[in-house]
């Protein structure tokens, strides 16, 4: 969406983009330029570029977000093992330091590119673009982008992914969606990980976690998973299978998709540009 200006226009500011008001003079004679563009216009542009690459090569790109230690890498290892050669995978790992996670993935024979961000708390579209140069997209069905472990900053940056998956691990507590609404609202799927710990950490209520998610007006699926049991991954694996199928259909039709968050601005932009 919004290839032209990258804006997110809402009802409250839509009047500003109507014809007539773009340039005006202030009382002091300065020129006032109406812009109404996302602050991350440059990043969003690079993200669109990445998404076009993915679509051109038939790749489904999934951005995994969670706090550090919620089990993103363990989930990927278990997923790769469970699905076996059903699909071809690659992983981009984001961490402040170390190649540890990429090495864990490579042990499974899967190509993995480690982005070490130094002190940056999130991945951005340019970092992902650089990492793509180390991968052969023609050999990939699913590209997992494991974002920096952080429940705040990664939510603000589009990487060009088709889908966001946010993980909430049982030890973190069931109130995390209420405490970090932005990142949980951005999710197309929420996974409740380390569910094998539920009997021990019995103050965690999956019902409360779900209620906190629904309070964000999010209707996305929430699956309870653990990497300790293959059967407990089945919902997640079926979701992945369905999404790969959906992406293949989109590619055939020349369509694309992006995380479901904020369709409002795109819709208003289309109507305002008529």
């Amino acid at each position, binding site marked *: 969406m919004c290839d032209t200006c990258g804006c997110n226009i809402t*009802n409250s*500011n839509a009047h500003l983009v109507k014809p007539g008001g773009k340039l005006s003079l202030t009382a002091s004679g300065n020129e006032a330029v109406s812009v*109404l563009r996302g602050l991350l216009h440059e990043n969003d542009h690079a993200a669109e570029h990445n998404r076009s690459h993915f679509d051109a090569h038939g790749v489904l790109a999934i951005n995994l977000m969670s706090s550090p230690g919620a089990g993103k890498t363990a989930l990927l290892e278990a997923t790769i093992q469970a699905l076996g050669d059903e699909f071809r995978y690659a992983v981009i790992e984001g961490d402040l330091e170390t190649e540890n996670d990429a090495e864990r993935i490579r042990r499974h024979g899967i190509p993995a590119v480690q982005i070490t961000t130094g002190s940056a708390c999130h991945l951005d579209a340019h970092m992902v673009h650089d990492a793509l140069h180390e991968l052969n997209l023609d050999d990939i069905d699913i590209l997992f982008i494991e974002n920096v472990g952080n429940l705040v900053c990664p939510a*603000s940056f589009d990487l060009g992914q088709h889908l966001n998956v946010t993980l909430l691990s049982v030890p973190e507590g069931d109130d995390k969606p209420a405490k970090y609404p932005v990142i949980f609202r951005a999710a197309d799927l929420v996974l409740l990980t380390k569910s094998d710990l539920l009997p021990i950490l019995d103050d965690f209520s999956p019902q409360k976690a779900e209620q906190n998610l629904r*309070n964000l*007006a999010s209707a996305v699926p929430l699956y309870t998973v653990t990497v300790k049991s293959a059967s407990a991954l089945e919902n997640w694996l079926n979701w992945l299978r369905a999404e790969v199928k959906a992406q293949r259909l989109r590619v055939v039709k020349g369509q694309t998709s992006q995380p479901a968050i904020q369709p409002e601005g795109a819709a208003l932009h289309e109507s305002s540009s008529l």
Partner: protein
Amino acid sequence: MHELAICQALMDQVDQIALEQQATEVVKIVLQIGPLSGVEAHLLEQAFPLASAGTLAERSVLEIKPQAIEVECSKCGQCTPAKPNLLVCGACGDWKTRLISGDEMLLESVELNCEEDMNHV
């Protein structure tokens, strides 16, 4: 702490607009920031002097217009204010709502001084 990165991206954008308009100076930058944007207004303000140093906007004023959260209910159709972690309908309490405003992270406008060049002509 991603606010500095966002502020730097903003300055690149403002500089480009100033160049396009052949401005000599950026006087004012107006942003719209909603609570669900994931960006903190006061952290942007702190990052601004750092990010604007040495640019045409070095002496500009940063104005941030906070945006209120409003949701439209899919069930009863009412538009009501809401909280960042409670986006349910204020009228009937249903959670199936659509966000109408509150996640803005927008550069609304820039005010430019283009006069100096005119005086030299």
